[in-house]
């Protein structure tokens, strides 16, 4: 008797050991829908999309019987929407004005992961968002790129984003330098020169060719100054600019790689509404800023819909909500497109995401279903 028990025990132990030694296979999920938004922003019919773990494993692949199947008949699968200019979930503001040059400031330090603002954004289809410091400093620190959901269903910082530069009049203050635009441009030039010469290590990252810098440039003149600096010191930048697009677009054209336009509201003036189309027509890739939480949770879609009624092409408008903001934030290798190998950050819409009549049916972040409209726990995260 006892030797048999011992044998049974031993076999069990070995089996348990083996099971523990093997890593469990990542879950496979297949989303079945009618079409998806491809990397060019076009809506292309397909049958299903396969997710393995966190990653998009296949588009239009054959059905996998062992996979969990999420069916959305007639729906359109889009990359998760990305709002590249927000202060979502920020506690007490992002306005540190003690010094005009603060490259080490990190917006992530003001991030409140428990804020319910992020849930609202998630339900509107925003899976990635950027915390951008206020325009009060010439060099405002790092933008924080956040995922709206992650481990323990909590939002988290995905990656350190671009360096924020600002030529806004808000950066010219009375109680510290620079006090004028002249002084501001000069200080910025000296700072960039120091970085290039290697004498200021804090700005090394700016010129190392990571994410493009984000330059807040309210006036057309600010964009031109930024463009000169970019060629002189060798860095790429995205101009946060709407107002003078009719001048900047034609004159700079492809020299300006990226423009962040918005936020656009349902009653924005015509000049602002036309900016996106103007930039795109002259060779600058456009991202639409949502500006949350100052506007509604569907600000990004509203902005894209308004721009599309004023000259921005529909495919470019869809890219402006997804792929281009990902590139601007330096996470284009991780998310923003429906492409094998990228994170499965996806939103299932009842129709074209650019159509304001479409509803959000489900949201996946990193392959995990985090929101389903009208589900058993309707509206709440599972």
């Amino acid at each position: 008797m006892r030797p048999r028990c011992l044998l049974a025990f031993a076999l069990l132990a070995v089996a348990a050991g083996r099971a523990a030694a093997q890593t469990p296979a990542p879950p496979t999920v297949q989303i079945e829908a009618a079409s998806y938004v491809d990397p060019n922003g076009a809506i292309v019919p397909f049958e299903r999309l396969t997710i393995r773990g966190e990653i998009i494993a296949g588009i239009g692949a054959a059905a996998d019987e062992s996979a969990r199947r999420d069916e959305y008949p007639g729906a359109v699968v889009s990359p998760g929407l990305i709002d590249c200019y927000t202060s979502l979930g920020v506690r007490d503001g992002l306005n540190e004005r003690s010094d005009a040059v603060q490259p080490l400031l990190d917006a992530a330090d003001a991030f409140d992961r428990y804020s319910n603002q992020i849930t609202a954004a998630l339900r509107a289809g925003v899976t990635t968002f950027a915390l951008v410091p206020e325009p009060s400093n010439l060099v405002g620190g790092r933008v924080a790129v956040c995922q709206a959901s992650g481990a323990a269903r909590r939002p988290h910082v995905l990656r350190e984003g671009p360096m924020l530069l600002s030529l806004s009049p808000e950066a010219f203050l009375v109680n510290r330098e620079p006090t004028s635009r002249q002084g501001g441009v000069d200080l910025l030039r000296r700072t960039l020169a120091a970085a290039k010469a290697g004498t200021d290590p804090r700005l090394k990252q700016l010129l190392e060719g990571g994410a493009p810098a984000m330059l807040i440039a309210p006036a057309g003149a600010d964009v031109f100054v930024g463009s000169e600096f970019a060629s002189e010191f060798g860095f790429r930048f995205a101009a946060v600019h709407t107002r003078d697009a009719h001048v900047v677009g034609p004159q700079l054209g492809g020299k300006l790689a990226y423009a962040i336009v918005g936020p656009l509201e349902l009653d924005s003036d015509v000049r602002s509404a036309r900016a996106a189309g103007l930039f795109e027509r002259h060779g600058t890739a456009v991202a639409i800023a949502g500006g949350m939480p100052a506007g509604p949770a569907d600000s990004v879609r509203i902005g894209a819909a308004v721009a599309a009624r004023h000259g921005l092409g529909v495919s470019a408008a869809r890219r402006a909500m997804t792929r281009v903001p990902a590139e601007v934030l330096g996470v284009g290798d991780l998310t923003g497109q429906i492409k094998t190998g990228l994170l499965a950050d996806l939103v299932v819409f009842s129709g074209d995401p650019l159509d304001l009549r479409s509803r959000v049916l489900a949201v996946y972040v990193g392959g995990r279903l985090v929101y389903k409209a009208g589900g058993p726990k309707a509206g709440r995260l599972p």
Partner: protein
Amino acid sequence: MYQPPLRAASAVVSARYRLFVGLLAVLPGLAWPAAAQLRPLVLQNATVLTGDGKTIEGASIMINSGRITAVGPRVDAPFLARKVDARGKFVTPGLIDLHTTFGLVLDGGTGGGLATAAAADAFNRFAEDDIRAALRQGVTTVYVPARPPTGVGGVGAVVRLIPGGEPNDVVLKREAALHVTIDASNSQGPLQRVKALTELRKLMRGAKEYRENWEDYLEELKEYEEKLAKEAKDQPSEGDKTATNPAGDRKPGRASRVADGGKAAPPPGTPDEKKREDAKGEKKDDKKDEIKKPAQPPNDRNAATILRVFDGELVLRGEANTPSDIAAVLDLAIEYGAALILEGGAGAHLLADRIAAARVPVVLSAPPETVAYAAGPTEFRRADAAAVLARAGVDVYFGTGVVSAGETPRLALLAARAVGHGLDSDKALAAITSKAADLLGLEELGRIAPGKQADLVVWSDHPFAPGARVERVLVSGREVFVADGAEGE
């Protein structure tokens, strides 16, 4: 005197010939753009959304003298008609924005209690760029309110968007509704809503008293005149009674008029004074029969305007953006028996059943909600408000609300967004076309049907579809906007 010579027969013939040649010369003129507007117009082969739920594919619309004369798959175009091929396009009625400050010169709004202020006077029909921008979004008619910060405001107007139009053309209805705002959110004190409502009730009561005063006055005036007439008839017998009356042939009626009328007292010692004394004496004697002309109450146009609401001539538009303010407006309307339209409407979804039972229409004109939590004005805004209200049986409409100078009312996108948050698409389109026209009491607008006014918009796609663009806008059959390629069209 010069006599013109008799015309010879040959001269008559040559006159006719000249007339004929003249006509021939004029005919090509009918092709000129200005004159072209006078010709009948046919829009051909479009997908027509009639505004009241019907879609007609491959239809043509015939327009003559500012009206739609025919709609259908086959429309006979008269000889001189201009034809516009609208194949692949959508045609809708001109959109109607039911509450917008678009085009208004805003300078702090009308003060409380000025019920006579008219929004029509503040509409800037010269803001042609702005008007063109609105036409480019398909909006052809707007209701502009006279919004007070709180309390009673002025009268709102219905205005057509015609760039460079004449005032009579542009203002369709000068006094469409009276405005009332219940808004305690910008208050400086805890009892602000109570104060606001008290003020309103005071004004309403004041209007009722004003009417009672006038009715009493008119009654008294009638009695007074009857008495005068009676005394005039009885005059001969009364003359004998008065012994002290020196002017025997004078009518006592006239004497008492002298005593009580507004004439200046004659100086003492004159013969008139004697008359006056006699008349006074007469007064003492005839105190019982004294005929006093009633004093006319002052005219109060504010009260008169409010009374038109009670009489059902003028609609009351109540703006409220929290559930308690909405409840207060509903109570007020019931109390005074006013026909009410609720505006703003943030928080109305929480009172949906009550509003439905009261059969009060709601014009949702509050701005969209914000993600940031805020108390006060933004607290009750909801993107699905229209859907919730419609499901409860409330008639829901849309207005773009506060639109500043330079901004553009994108009514179609506002309605499309409501569809995305649960409102039925046909209801949404009707709410900005046919039903909107009905709410304003302008049934000749808002529909594509024979006999209706030719306010039409030609779109590149369904008005709610992404990237849809307006290509042509007609108001009363006149082309007021044609896409000019300014946006890469």
